[in-house]
Structure formats: C-alpha cells, structure tokens
C-alpha cells in the first residue's frame, strides 16, 4: 500500500502546474451559461488543446498525451487548484468520447474527436424527454430508416449546453415493436443547426440558459453518425452512463480545491462567526480528501485489472452531496454577501461561490438522480431484491 507518486507522475504534475500558471486567465471568464461566456470558454478549450492539455488521457493521435488515469487525477487537482475555467467541452469529452472509443468506428473517431477536444465542435447531450427522465428507457423520440440514413422525430429536453452547442448525441427508438423498452434503441449524433431542429433554451434556476429543449422534425442523420449497431443503443449508452456518474465527470480535484478555498474563507471569517460552521468546513475538507483517496483506490484497482462495476454510483451520490454541502457552508460563511448572485458587482470571489452553489444544486439530479443511484447501490452492490421504484 503506497500513496507515493512515481517520478513520471511528479514530472507530469509539475509540467501541468507550470503550464497552468502561465495560461489560466487572471480573472474568471464570464459564466459559460451565457453567449459571451460560452464563446470565451470555447476559446479556452482551444488554448488547452493547442498545448495538449485538453484530453490528457486520449491517445496522442487524437490530441492527447496517452496519460494514465492517475496522471489525469493529478492534472485535475492542478487544474482546479489553479482556478482554471469550467470545461465547456466536458459533455463531449466525458460522455460521448468514451462511447466512441469503445463502440465507434475509426472513421468516426478521426472525424469527431479532435474538433471535440479543441472546442471547435461543442457537444450537447440529448437523453431526457418530457415523459422520460429517470425512466430513460421509456423514451419515445424515433429514428426512422430512410435512404442512406435515419430521420429523427420527437422532443428532447434538459439538454445541457444545447443553447449554444453545435452538435448533440442521444438515444432514439428505431424499432417500436420490441418486447422490452431497452430494446430497439439506436445511438445517434446530429447537428443542432440541421433543418428540422428547433432549439428552445431553458433558463435554469438562476435564469441562465444552461440547457434547452430540442424539437426534432424529420431531421436527417447519415448512417455514418450511428454509433454501434442500430437497435443496440441502450447497451452502447450505458458504457457512457458509468463514465458520467463516476470519476470522469467530476474528478476529486474539483472538490479538494473548493474545500481549500472554503477553509481559507473560514480562516478569514470575522470574529464571532458561529464555531459550528467550522465543523462543516472540516467535514468538507474531510469529504474532499475521502473522495480523492477513494479515487486513488479506484485507479489502483483499475490498474490492477479489476473493474468497478456499479461502484461509480457511490461516487456520484457522494460528490454531488459534498459539493452542495460545501457551497451551502460557503454561503453561510459569507453572511450577507452570500445572498448575492454571481452577477452582482459586489459578489465575493467574482461570484464563484454563487455560481458554484447554483451549479451544485443540480448535482443530485443530473447524470441519474441520487434516488436512482441509491437503488443501483442497493441492488447491485448490496444484492437487495428489485422492487417498485
């Protein structure tokens, strides 16, 4: 049992740290959920990609560094400690790319991955539908065979980044006559500016258009944009779902950095601050450290040839609740200033606590609600019987 890092890992960390020190914008970019901020974040992705820091774990041929999972964890620690911008390319990188690596064709990888990693093409997800949220397999949007491809019809919703993104990926029902809802689904990629696509941005809780509804009316998609076999979409998508809720969507570095900032806030708190808040700060520090160590253990197990099975569900519940508790404590420590939105001129830390809080509120909902995750934990990790949801 060893928590020490190799010389190569130290060198990788140091290289990342010095690059970040020279490139991270001195003041935070505008919120990526605004048109102006989206453009600025897209530009940041280009900067990252130019020096091969956008997708460090990808093979070099696709613009990565072939880094190990451990190196990626270290990069993420440095990235968040440096206060670097949020990743507008995240959905593509953490959800679509793993699916392409596992189920895509060489042609798809050659065509899709580099523009994804450079921010040239920003991807939105198109999973949920108005009547299909947690029960995703009940989805009704269709893909109908046509010459050379498919026609998409229906409605998708809660599509993160879709207000400003270029393309989307999701599941469509290609065979309406199957015995079970998980069958007859096909995984497709499609452009958001294609004829027949209407994007209606939806304001999240603070009004920013962080997601959108997509109305699809005979949207043509060529066969080349089907991932995996038609009708096998559920199986193809589930490899993505594990990545989303587990490590790769939310690395521990995000929380260790935020917890350190919270501790700094606590140390700077005015005399007379409720000491009980200190306990919550300690819990945030401990929780972030726990998740970091848990991830190190997972990376070690993966390196030893084990698989994680349903374990990423533990990660998802833990980081989403940690994030929320951490930000709630921060707002309380900020006292009257904790009431200010990130757009307020006087918002502390350029509004990053307010923005982080709003973002954290969604954590227990997206990527499979925490209720669904707890069902998975109980049934697949503890072996409890399936029951009514």
């Amino acid at each position, binding site marked *: 049992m060893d928590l020490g890092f190799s010389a190569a890992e130290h060198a990788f960390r140091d290289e990342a740290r010095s690059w970040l020190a020279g490139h991270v914008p001195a003041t935070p970019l505008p919120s990526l959920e605004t048109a102006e901020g989206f453009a600025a974040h897209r530009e940041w992705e280009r900067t990252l990609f130019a020096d091969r820091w956008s997708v460090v774990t990808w093979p070099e041929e696709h613009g990565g560094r072939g880094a190990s999972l451990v190196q990626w964890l270290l990069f993420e620690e440095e990235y968040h400690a440096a206060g670097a911008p949020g990743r507008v390319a995240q959905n593509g990188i953490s959800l679509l790319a793993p699916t392409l690596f596992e189920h895509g064709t060489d042609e798809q990888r050659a065509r899709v991955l580099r523009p994804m990693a450079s921010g040239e093409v920003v991807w939105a997800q198109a999973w949920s539908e108005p009547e299909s949220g947690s029960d995703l397999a009940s989805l009704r949007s269709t893909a109908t065979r046509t010459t050379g491809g498919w026609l998409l019809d229906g409605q998708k919703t809660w599509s993160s980044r879709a207000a400003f993104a270029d393309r989307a990926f999701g599941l469509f029902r290609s065979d309406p006559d199957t015995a079970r809802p998980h069958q007859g689904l096909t995984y497709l990629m499609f452009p958001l500016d294609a004829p027949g696509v209407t994007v209606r941005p939806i304001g999240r809780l603070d009004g920013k258009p962080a997601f959108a509804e997509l109305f699809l009316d005979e949207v043509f998609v060529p066969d080349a944009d089907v991932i995996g076999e038609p009708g096998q979409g559920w199986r193809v998508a589930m490899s993505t779902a594990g990545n989303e809720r587990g490590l790769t969507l939310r690395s521990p570095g995000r929380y260790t950095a935020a917890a350190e900032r919270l501790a700094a806030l606590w140390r700077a708190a005015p005399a007379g601050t409720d000491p009980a808040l200190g306990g919550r700060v300690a819990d945030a520090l401990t929780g972030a450290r726990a998740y970091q160590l848990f991830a190190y253990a997972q990376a070690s197990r993966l390196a030893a040839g084990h698989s994680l099975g349903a374990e990423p569900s533990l990660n998802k519940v833990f980081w989403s609740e940690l994030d929320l508790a951490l930000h709630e404590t921060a707002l309380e420590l900020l006292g009257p200033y904790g009431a200010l939105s990130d757009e307020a001129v006087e918002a502390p830390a350029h509004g990053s606590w307010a923005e982080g809080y709003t973002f954290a509120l969604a954590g227990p909902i997206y990527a499979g609600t925490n209720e669904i995750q707890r069902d998975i934990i109980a049934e697949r990790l*503890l072996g409890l019987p399936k029951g009514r949801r």
Partner: protein
Amino acid sequence: MRFLLTDEQREFARALDGMLGAAGVPAAARAWASGEHKPGRALWARLAQAGVFGLAVPERYAGAGRLPVELAVAFVELGRHAVPGPVVETVASAAFLTRLGDAGAAGAAAAGEWLPRIAAGDTVLSLAAGAPYALDADAADAVLVVEGDTVRRTDAHGPVQPSLDPVRRLSRPLGGTVLARDPAVSAAAAHARDLARLATAAQSLGLGRALLAATVAHVKQRTQFAVPLGSFQAVKHRLADALIGLELAEPLVYAAALAVAAGAPSAGREVAAAKAAAGEAGYATARTALQLHGAVGYTEELDLSLWIRKARPLRDAWGTPAECRTRVLEG
C-alpha cells in the same frame, strides 16, 4: 501509487476474520460484561498468537515492528467481531511506552519490562489520558494514567461504572506510583492518542461493515406485505447511505495509517479526519441496523446488540467527532 492492501495484508485480515468468527466472541463479550474475563483473556492470547499486539511493538522489544497499516487491518477485524477488552488502550500504551523508551526517559525501564509482554499477549494494559475513566481497568494488569508531564501506573481502581455498552467497563484509576515525570511524557501521550484514534477508527469501520452485512441479510430474509423488506425503496436507500459512509471512510483510515507509518507531519490531522468519518459512519450504520431490524434489534438478547451498543462509544472514544473536526481545521 498503489493505494490497495497487499495480498499479504488481505490474507492477514481473512485469517483473523476466520479465527474470530469461530472463536465464540459474542459469548466472551457477554461474559466480559458480567466481569468474567477468562474467555476474553483466552481470546486475547489467540490475538497475540496471530500477531496483533506485536504490530504496535518494535522488533527490539520482541514485536513485529511498528506497522500501523497492518494494525489498522487487524483492528477492522476486531471491530467486525466486536472483540471485548482494552485492545485499543493496550496498543496505544505500547506506542506510549515505545516513545518514552526512545526518549531515554525515566520510564524506559517500563518499556523494556512491558513491551515484550504486550507483544506476547501476557500483559493487558489500560490507558487513561485526560479522561476520568479507564476502560476495563478491572481486567487489565495495570493502568497507565497520564496527566501533563507525569505518568503513573496503578493496579487500583474505583467501582465499575456501568456504561451504555456494558462490555466496555469504566472505572476511575486510583493512586499508583509515578513512572516518569518528563516533558517527553506529553509528546508520547499525543502520539499514543493518535494511534488510539487510528485503531478506534478502524474498529468503527469493521463494526459498521458487520452491522451492514447483518442488516442486509435480515432485510433479504424478513418478509412483510408478502415481499422482502429489502425490496422497499426507503429500506434500500438507508442501506445505500450506510455503504457510502463506510466505503468513503475506509480510504481515510488507511491513508491515516500510512501517514502514521511515515511519521508525516500531516498524521495528526489525517488520523482525526479518519476518526471522525469512520466513527460517524459506524454509528450511522448502527442506527440503520437498529431501525431496520425493528423491535428485535432493540433487544439485548440478539447478539446484534453487542455491535449496536458499541458504535456510539467507539465514535466518541479518543476524540469525539467534534474534537476531531477541530483538529482537522488546525491543519
């Protein structure tokens, strides 16, 4: 970086688990609670034989060397089986005496006298440092009492005060002779406290694992409304939360053990974080076990009570969560 137990460490845990599972621990614990220590001391000898106490004793005192990771592995198993007795206090005493011996202080002779006997399982020690009561003083061969720069040894104690966990017998150490009066005493006591915290955290983790396993088994088998209890979502979610708490506390415990092993400056903070997290996770699991067993879980007849009643004192012994959080904030 390979943050995984080695095959040898896993095998050590499996061997202890197997040995304790067949050793009649619940009966020994019940006897211990009534003041009958014989079965408990027999168990103690088997733990010594398995090498548990030697893990806190340097080789020059006939121990296995100071091995905090292996010690944590062992104490997870002691917690899993709700082993009675001042196991934590004895290994913490070993850490204390070792430090005192290293400092060349007046108590060095005591280190030479006791450490080989601790490793062999012949001496059971309790330790009171900044607390009014010593655990199981009535069963121990001696109690070490630390106050500031002074440490006393005593065989005398006041009447046993019944505790919420009857297996944990508390009494006031009385009188005794001064073993050492030296600035090294308080430093050694701080080190001993960290080791006690680490071992207690590991016990909490193992205790929680056992409670979770027992409760999962119960809700799979117990039927109401014609379905297993475990098919109800409210039941599932409580158990899922228990698992999350334990799974995320475990790496804190082993990282703290590594920090202690390395003598890292962060060791005190890491041990405190592990203690708070594991103590809370173990106790939360006990609450879930109690709730999901229903009325039968609220009886002392069921052996489960031996685990349920231990969760709270383990959470609070050698540093309550509040004290540990304060330590975490100190950095």
